[in-house]
């Protein structure tokens, strides 16, 4: 385990690698939660899994269906990868991870086919394509393969929650802009009772097609990333203002070139 962690220590910021016996510190748990939901959000920061993101977020229902499926796969694959991390040879770890993910995705696909057939049809090819969602393999490789089961599960849950959050908001914005409704077709996901959930915000004869078409997803997500950056910047500035200004006492720094 140690050699995987040392060899694969890439640029990603990770909590300290822990051994099975060492209990998690509260700070680590908090860091995993904040990373998944905000600081290292799979959609807004890592920009992973854009293909399903752009394709299926035309309504809240579709976005919710796909992101819940992704969340379940993410948690399950993180847990499994973390469990088997000590027995998988480094050279073949990626194929093994993909096999694990693919089997979970297949199970999810069969479950959706059985219990929410309408949503299964409307998501179409994007359910099997969860296998190729880089957010999942990325977390397996970067986090689950070098942390214990509890932390891996938490990370999967939080990354999945961050993914879900952005997708649902994206779906809501696009649905409101595009056709003026919310939760249209929720009965496909939640059963017949949910047909009443549909909220018509405004009635219009003409739909704003661009918001429903994939370019609308690019525009909306660009706006989201911009908003996130604005919030981050203002928070940084506030932090800086709180800290006392450092006084620099050195008068001059002379840099001597080594070539001379």
């Amino acid at each position, binding site marked *: 385990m140690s050699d995987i962690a040392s060899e694969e220590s890439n640029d990603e910021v990770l909590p300290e690698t822990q051994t099975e016996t060492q209990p998690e510190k509260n700070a680590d748990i908090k860091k995993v939660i904040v990373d998944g939901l905000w600081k290292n959000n799979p959609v807004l920061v890592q920009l992973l899994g854009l293909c399903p993101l752009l394709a299926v977020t035309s309504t809240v229902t579709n976005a919710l269906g796909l992101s819940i499926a992704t969340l379940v796969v993410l948690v399950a694959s993180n847990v499994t990868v973390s469990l088997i991390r000590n027995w998988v040879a480094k050279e073949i770890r990626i194929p093994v991870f993909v096999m694990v993910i693919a089997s979970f995705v297949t199970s999810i696909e069969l479950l959706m086919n059985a219990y929410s057939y309408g949503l299964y049809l409307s998501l179409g090819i994007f359910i099997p394509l969860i296998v190729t969602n880089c957010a999942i393999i990325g977390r397996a490789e970067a986090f689950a393969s070098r942390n214990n089961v509890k932390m891996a599960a938490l990370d999967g849950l939080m990354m999945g929650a961050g993914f879900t959050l952005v997708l649902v908001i994206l779906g809501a914005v696009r649905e409101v802009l595009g056709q003026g409704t919310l939760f249209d077709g929720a009965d496909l996901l939640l059963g017949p009772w949910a047909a009443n959930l549909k909220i018509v915000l405004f009635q219009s004869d*003409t739909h704003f097609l*661009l918001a429903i078409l994939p370019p609308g997803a690019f525009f909306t997500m660009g706006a989201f990333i911009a908003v996130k950056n604005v919030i981050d910047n203002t928070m940084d500035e506030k932090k800086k203002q709180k800290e006392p200004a450092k006084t620099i006492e050195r008068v001059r720094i002379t840099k001597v070139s080594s070539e001379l």
Partner: protein
Amino acid sequence: MMFKIASSPHNHSQKKTSAIMRTVIFACIPGALAQFYFFGAGNLIHIAMACAVALFCEAFILSLRDKPVRKHLLDYSALLTAVLLGLSLPPLAPWWITVIGTAFAITVVKQLYGGLGSNPFNPAMAGYVLLLVSFPLQMTMWLPPESIQHIDLTFFDSLSVIFTGFTTEGYSVNQLRMNIDGITMATPLDTLKTDLTLGLTTAESMTKSVFGAYGGLGWEYINLGFLLGGLYMLKTGVIKWQIPVAVLGSMAFIAIGGSIIDADQAAPPMLHLFSGATMMAAFFIATDPVSASTTDKGRLIYGCLIGLLTYIIRTWGGYPDAFAFAVLLANMCVPLIDQLTQPKVYGHPARGTKQ
């Protein structure tokens, strides 16, 4: 120290941006008047609305970006975008079409990319494409020209249709578009395309009333108006000859080829050159100094690309006219074209030759 990247020779033209933009706006006048004559005051109303929205959006974003508002508003570039968009909309499109299109063109396509000089796409055409993709129904409600309309359209009728959807006498846009027999009349390019799929030949289709002597009825004079304005811009040196000549030349060349190969199924070259947006696009839109190629050779390639793409989309695509798409696609190629056509630097050997 900053190196400005511009193609040589670095001689200065003494024209200010505002003067250039003003000249272009003035050069639109003949075409706009022709449009006014054949299709009523609709486009003028759209231009006025677009100008107001454009100035508001530009001022709003500039103040957000902490830029000097007055200086940038007075370079007339936002107004030019508004005028071009207003000219290219269907005359009786509803008012919110103009508002959405102009706001998108100025805020997203122009200012979000960094304002005048930094936008990779032509703002007016990107706004037009947004509208065409989002609201295909409203964006294809073209009127037949005035001489074959059977309901008279006054200025107040246009105004009323744009804001309420009905004329002062209660006619809807679709009623205005019908002929005496109750059949909706489409634009010449649209009519020809539909007729060809119905099995008519080009010659048979062109006997219909929407066609004029050599182009679309009314459209040929509008195009002549824009040609006139374009020639004026060439004479004053606001635009260079390469882009319009390449656009029109490549289009005529392919259209002549198409007619020779299959005269029954292809639109004749004169129809291509004098219908739809051809002259306006060739002289006013493709020549946008920001989003077009900046080298002489590059301008020729860029223009040919637009002509070729327009012919392809007009003939085989789903939309009746294609300049907006062609211009945007060519805009995307501009960085590559510019890089490949860098002129030889004075005093240096040409690229690829050995000393």
